[in-house]
């Protein structure tokens, strides 16, 4: 399969990616793209297929069908993958008996980088003090920092981070946010960061790719997802008349479990005016309290509710 997107330096493209484990489709015809100079959140509940997708893009797992490309080529075709792409994968990848500095030096030499690079990245992630200690004694947060240091060794223009905030303390998360933003805004790098908690990446990402059960649910700007979520809750004894009165507003009306309806695509003022003009009796009219997190949960709970990408 070929990608219909042109090859752009640093662009990640998933095109029809599918991974079947036995009877289970872990990733199902997944297509999306991640642009340079932006931080993209890769979101979905646990088991949605995020890690499998990243592993296919990185060539560690073979796609059953479809392709994942970086800068227009597969990972294995990259001239210097170690100096082009940096990756942090969910479980930490260290020999417990090796020191942090030696761990990095092992991969420095493999990637053709000078040994001093190991000390530079250790300094970046704040592990200089622990450089000579065995990884065995590292906390989860320290392991995440070392994993990030490993990813940064080759000064890559593309970063794929799988749940990098796991185990980081609030200070560490704030630091990570700053780092990722700087990579995208100042250096123009491509940053794809996965998480199963939207709020974790909400403040960092420009765009989101949301998947559930291996399928794409939403791809686009986070701001647009937010806009689509802020509905208006309306309760009327005559819902059919309400629908008729709201028809000119061109809104989406969905019933809620308590008998009211959620109106998406209009302000409470516009809904109120339309109801008054249509002489519809209202018992309740308020702005929907649906937070971004609720929207995320709603989207990922029901994979059939595919929203159109608006980016």
């Amino acid at each position: 399969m070929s990608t219909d997107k042109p090859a752009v330096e640093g662009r990640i493209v998933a095109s029809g990616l599918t991974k079947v484990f036995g009877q289970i489709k872990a990733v199902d015809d997944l297509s999306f793209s991640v642009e340079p100079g932006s931080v993209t959140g890769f979101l979905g509940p646990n088991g949605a297929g995020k890690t499998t997708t990243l592993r296919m893009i990185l060539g560690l797992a073979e796609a059953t069908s479809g392709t994942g490309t970086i800068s227009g080529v597969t990972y294995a075709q990259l001239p210097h993958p170690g100096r082009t792409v940096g990756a942090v994968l969910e479980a930490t990848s260290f020999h417990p008996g090796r020191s942090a500095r030696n761990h990095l030096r092992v991969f420095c030499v493999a990637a053709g980088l000078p040994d001093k690079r190991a000390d530079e990245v250790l300094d970046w992630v704040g592990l200089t003090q622990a450089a000579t200690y065995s990884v065995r004694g590292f906390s989860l947060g320290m392991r995440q920092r070392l994993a990030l240091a490993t990813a940064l060794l080759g000064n890559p223009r593309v970063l794929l981070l799988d749940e990098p905030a796991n185990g980081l303390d609030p200070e560490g998360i704030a630091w990570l946010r700053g780092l990722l933003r700087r990579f995208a805004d100042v250096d123009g790098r491509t940053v794809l960061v996965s998480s199963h908690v939207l709020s974790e990446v909400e403040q960092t990402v420009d765009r989101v790719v949301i998947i559930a059960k291996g399928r794409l649910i939403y791809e686009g700007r986070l701001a647009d997802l937010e806009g689509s979520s802020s509905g208006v809750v309306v309760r009327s004894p005559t819902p059919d008349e309400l629908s008729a009165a709201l028809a000119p507003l061109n809104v989406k009306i969905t019933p809620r479990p308590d008998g009211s309806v959620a109106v998406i695509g209009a302000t409470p003022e516009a809904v109120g005016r339309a109801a008054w003009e249509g002489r519809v009796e209202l018992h309740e009219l308020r702005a929907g309290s649906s937070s971004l997190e609720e929207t995320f949960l709603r989207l990922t709970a029901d994979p059939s509710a595919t929203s159109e990408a608006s980016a």
Partner: protein
Amino acid sequence: MIALLRSEWRKMTTIKLGWGMLLGAMALAALGVVAQIASNGSPGTGVPPLTNPDTQKAIAASASSAYLFSVVVGIIMITTEFRHFTSRPTFLIEPRRGRVIVAKILVAALVGVIYGIVCVALTAAIMIPWFGAKGVTIGWIDSGVLQSLLSALVVIALFAVVGIGVGVLVRNQIAAVIGTLVYLFVLEPLITIIPVVKNVYPYLPGAAAAAITGANRSSGLAHLDALHGGLVLLGWGLLFAVAGWMFTIRRDIP
């Protein structure tokens, strides 16, 4: 390739595994040599005395028992990557997986040669004063003692390569180590009892190793000469590695 070799060498030297296993190899080699010398030539046992060239050669060749540790080192060199998931950064930096395996084989061979040199030197260091004290001359060249020491070195080195092969094929560390030891010390000796498979016996890994040192020359079993024994043992290592590349390494990396 040079970068990969250096990386693999660093992996080896930055953990304690290699040193611990070397100590084990030395202990096993020394134990074998001491036991052989002590049991030889005592009056009334009917065993040929230390002056016998074959006895001297057998003592020198017993250093090869240290292969037990070199094969385990080979297995662990590769399986530890899957156990601790360092396989991920390894294959991310070099996605051409076959090259990583070749680098591992070469570094394992080097590690095996170092083990071999150390164990053989230790054997000589035990033999020289002991024989000296008993007033027995060692026939380094005439009796072929030097050749036996060299053959022990080759066995130890080749088994490190076999270890890589096994580890590539069987990624589970415990299974690979236990399986190999059970095969070498239980299954293969059992095979020699079965009449039908006696014809293939010379080509089995343990028999090939014994052919290198000449340990099975007087056993009554069919055996290869030293050169062919060496080639067969190397062949086993490479066969396992190729099979592992086909069935394991080309698949998804855990």
